[in-house]
């Protein structure tokens, strides 16, 4: 039997207030999988399931599952209404085959978000931000 393959779901967790923690997200996903797919869903999802990474500032997280049961998790994510007792929504952004590919997507996504935020800034502040960027990242 060949290796155990996983899928990493890149999700954005948007709470009403405060920060999300890994264990609360873990619990919320399992509860929703149980609600949507029953005991079979939970039993199928548990091997290989875990919240591997969470960025409290950007509210982005990586959820790892086995290949196959990842469809059960992905289909249950839109139905999450509460995380850690607080109202929250979960948006799936990407499905990656490894953490590395997940981070490659995350880098591109964050760069696009930054660009969008830059465009909303007044011209003076935008120039200042670009100056600082050039300073830290070097000329491109």
């Amino acid at each position: 039997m060949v290796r155990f393959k996983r899928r990493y779901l890149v999700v954005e967790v948007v709470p009403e207030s405060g920060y999300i923690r890994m264990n609360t997200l873990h619990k919320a996903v399992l509860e929703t999988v149980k609600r949507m797919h029953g005991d079979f869903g939970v039993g199928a999802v548990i091997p290989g399931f875990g919240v591997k990474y969470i960025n409290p500032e950007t509210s982005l997280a990586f959820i790892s599952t086995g290949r196959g049961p990842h469809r059960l998790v992905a289909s249950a994510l839109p139905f999450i209404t509460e995380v850690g007792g607080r109202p929250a929504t979960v948006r799936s952004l990407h499905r990656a085959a490894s953490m590395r590919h997940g981070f490659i997507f995350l880098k591109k996504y964050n760069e696009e978000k930054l660009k969008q935020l830059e465009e909303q800034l007044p011209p003076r502040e935008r120039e200042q931000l670009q100056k600082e960027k050039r300073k830290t990242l070097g000329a491109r």
Partner: protein
Amino acid sequence: MKLARGFCDLNISATDTDLKKTLLKALSLGYQTLAVNREVTDTFAPHQKGKKRKKDDFPVVLPPPKVSLTKEELDRHGISREPVILTRITITYADPGSAFLSKFRNNIKQYDIVAFTPTTDSALKQTVSQTLVDVDIIALGPEERGTRFARKLLRLAVERNIYFELSYGPCITNSTRRQQTITLAHILHHSFRSANIIITSQTNSVLYHLRAREGLSKDYLCGVQQTPNNLALKKLPMPEVQDCPYLHFLEDRTWDLLAVRTLAWVPVLWTSE
């Protein structure tokens, strides 16, 4: 030497107050081969190694129970085929260094089927590699150890013709056990493609015993589709010679087998991916 015939249920609890009633009910549901199970637990944990074990610390291994069914009892329940009643012992232990196996080796050998439930990785390693007692079945319990089992050891067990057991009885009443059994089925599928698996009832109540030909409903408990399972049963290869003679089956009755190598636990919903 008794040979298994027809549908088999290799785990009927021996602590049942009315064991005969359970056996007769199982036989009337279509089973022909039953194994009366007796459980023995060695409670000595590995971290107690420094402590000297007294005589009383060892669990007692009783000789196999003797159950006989008269012709009148069989006729009353409408059982026409001659039943095969086997005896089975299930040993739960954690410490591989324990002298329990060598001490009670002769008593354990009196049983027709020997099953082990190792609760630690080192105990699982010993179960697979030891030669003191011939192991027929490994009944893994994820509720004790979580979901991590060394896949190398599981594959080694399959190579040594040791079977893994999945029980549906506890799944019927307990939601947590249901989840754990499904998780275990998936782990065994990932490890060795569900090659050496048997399905048993592990029930001591007549209420939770499923009919023998309800094999497909047992698979529905795990969400497996019917058609591939039918194909899997029909395509089953002829059983190779096992170390345990009680897992031999009649050549012309392969369609009749329940306690068999089954591919029924394949998570069919996503094999297309």
